[in-house]
């Protein structure tokens, strides 16, 4: 199974829905709440997001080598299905 990693904000509605999406499908994921991280970690996260063309908009989801920014359940499904085939 592809590794799923996400950066989220604890205050973000769409981050909450993104986490629920993966939890309901029982897909394990790593998650870091940007707003709960220390400054060094925040800068590292922001640098990673910017390197991949994203700004500071959350959620930011890495599925394998692919990145999805925003709550896009169809895209999550597509990337997960590709992996599971």
């Amino acid at each position, binding site marked *: 199974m592809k590794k799923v990693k996400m950066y989220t*904000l604890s205050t973000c509605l769409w981050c909450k829905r993104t986490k629920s999406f993966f939890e309901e499908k029982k897909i394990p994921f790593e998650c870091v709440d940007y707003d709960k991280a220390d400054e060094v970690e925040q800068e590292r996260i922001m640098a990673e997001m910017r390197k991949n063309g994203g700004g500071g908009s959350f959620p930011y989801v890495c599925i394998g080598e692919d990145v999805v920014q925003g709550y896009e359940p169809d895209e999550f499904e597509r990337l997960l299905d590709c992996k599971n085939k």
Partner: protein
Amino acid sequence: MNLTTLAARKKALRFLFEPVVDKLGYKFTPVEEDADFLLEAEVSFEEKYGMPYCPCQARTRDRAENMKIVCPCIPFHREHFDAMKRCWCGLFIHKDVSDPSTLKQIPPSKFRKP
């Protein structure tokens, strides 16, 4: 913050935002549960940082950039939000949209200015 103060502050933000976004062609999402969740987050930011920042965009150490995510942040992201017919967090949607569930977030990296 007690519940009475929280409710009053959420009501105040609605009162402040509504005429501003109206002039920009937007309105509050009709999904009350979502609006309530987002406004509650903004009230907590206002109490903690003095500004009702967007709950779905990150604050950094760059104050000028942070000012671009103070709600309602539509003027700073006008073309991007107009393309989505919603703001990033979804608190506001275009006036001509009745069902916000049809709207998708377009990542800033995928949005190309017309």
